[in-house]
């Protein structure tokens, strides 16, 4: 599944990325690397972008970009 499939307050572990892009490179440099736990904090009022908590800080990312991030949901 992808990061974009998570519901609010769900946690997941990053598995990898689909495709390659500058965005991906930056996401990894910001600490979104395979093995990292992510919490989907909230959706923006209009449904997009989303706010995730990663490594203890808040990061905002568009849904379409979240579709590139493969994750495993933590139960």
């Amino acid at each position, binding site marked *: 599944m992808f990061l974009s499939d998570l519901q609010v307050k769900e946690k997941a572990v990053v598995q990898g990325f689909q495709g390659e892009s500058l965005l991906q490179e930056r996401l990894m440099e*910001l600490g979104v*690397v395979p093995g990292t736990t992510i919490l989907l904090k909230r959706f923006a*009022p209009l449904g997009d*972008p989303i*706010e995730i908590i990663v490594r203890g800080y808040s990061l905002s*990312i568009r849904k379409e*970009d979240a579709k590139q991030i493969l994750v495993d949901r933590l139960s």
Partner: protein
Amino acid sequence: MAIPVSSSPLTVALIGNPNVGKTTIFNALTGLRHNTANYPGVTVEKRWGSLKLKNTVEPVELIDLPGAYSLNPQSPDEEIVRNVLFGNQTGTTKPDLVVMVVDANNFNRNLYLTLQVMAVGLPMILVLNMWDEAMQSGKKINLAKLRAELGVVAVTTEASLGVGIELLRTAIETGLVSQSKPNLRHDISKMKTTERYQLIDRLASQMVTEPAEEVRTISHKIDDVLTHPILGWLVFVVVMGVIFQSIFSWATPLMDLISKGVEELGKLAAAFLPAGPLESLVVDGVIAGVGNVIVFVPQIFLLFFFIAFFEDFGYMARAAFVLDRVMKKVGLNGKAFLPLLSSFACAIPGIMATRTIPDKNDRLATILVAPLMSCSARLPVYALMIGAFIPDGRFLGIFGYKGVTLFSMYFLSIFAGLGMATLFRKTLLKGTLSPFLLELPPYRVPRLQNVMLVMWDRGKEFIKNAGTTIFMLSIILWFLVSYPKSDAVKTHYQNLRQQAAQSLQADDFKNKIVVLNHEEAGEQLKKSFAGRLGRVIEPVIRPLGFDWKIGIGLVSSFAAREVLVSTLAIIYNVGDDANENSKDLIAALRKAKDPVTNKPVYTPLIAIGIMVFFVLACQCMSTVAIVRRETGGWGWPLFMISYMTFLAWMGAFLVHQGGKLLGFE
């Protein structure tokens, strides 16, 4: 203590992620005395100041580098940081010491850049800022382990309270002497990003203990409200409303004061200078011209104040978060929202605020449409036209015609701005939508000192601009409206004045002289280059229903939009001190007749055409000057003038011809 002697001053560079309090540390270390300029060729701000040390007489220069997430640059800011660190930045020497500032609350991610900087191999001091805050949240960082593992001098600070600053100062001094380089026991140069984070996780597990339970911080609670699906919008509207209301109500008295000051200065200069061309150049050209622009300083400063305040507080990132969806629709980034909103007060701070937009095409598109937002300089034009020509009636008995007209102008400006943004992003400034990756920093109480400094730095740039480009353009415009002087007109009015002196008594004579002077100024303006230009462009603006007198107004209001009011006042012989509420001016405009057809020059339809023209046209030399600076050349500003003029012409054309088809005059 002996410090190695070098020819250039010693340089210390502050580096760190955005939002780690770097600038607060910079301010504390330099004691508020600092300089700003742009790095050559780019609009990245360079801040530097002299660092006071206890035992060192030699000057030490402290540079506040822009915030960066990585030395593998993805924005002009990060490019600069990299170049400075590697000594490749022209005009900036390679630092003798790096002060790496990290946010102790966000240690893990901050360590990524730290490792990169350590690998550069410059002497370094690690500052763990916001230390007290992190400790209060229950986090524990073992400093002894950290120093041992990273092989670096580490200092803790809580810069916003001034805690630890003196220790840091001493550490910098020691570091400059010892030149001790960090001694990382791991070679990160060959590691991939994932491996680096694995190392970071390993290091962090040895020296950081996270609080057992995730504390629900105040920040999270604030966010629940500010990004709430309903409350979020409410807060947004209220915040923006308060900003705009205060800009208009607080700035107005100051603006009036400056207006008065400029006027008095003009009178003073006139008293000292011999009457003639020099006096006119100084009084009507330089003082009045620069004055037209300086009047906006209070508004611009206030706007910069609010932007800096909400940036410091952390709200601006949330506004971008909330509005990204809307901006994405027109091909812009969420970060474009604030610049566009500021442009409703004045395009200058708006265009300067586009610096936060990382993607070049995104930023250019935002700059190009910012002047379409209906700024406050258009208000006098609206006020005059609506006051004089829009009747008092109401639609459906509720909405006054006047109010609806004003509202329509704002609506048109938003519509045109967003429309053009879409168009530019689909054609000229194509490119994939730049990713919206934005850190939402924790909310913090803004530091008044920081806010004032940011306001002052940015405001100063505007004033500098007024002193250079605008100064020059003012002189050119003055020349166009003042020359050539017609001797025939002068002699004619001298004769009339003499006649008046012979035939009229005291008060009547005084009044007559005023009328004659106003008439003479009007006649001279009509004979000037600007007057001729008005006639030259008349065939072009005739289809808009504008005569050559309005043409003169269009030419001269390039100085600033509200100059239209005083220009019309001169043309219609009521004196240049008339304002948009002047009864004389309104009466003169209503009376104005076309000499050929004997029909009124101004009708409600023409007034709307003029307003539409002013919504869409680039009648502002300050904007042109700032766009030239921000884009680094004349290409984009000239393009902007062209497309906006075309748009304005089309808009006014459609209003006039469409209106005529519907049976209006």
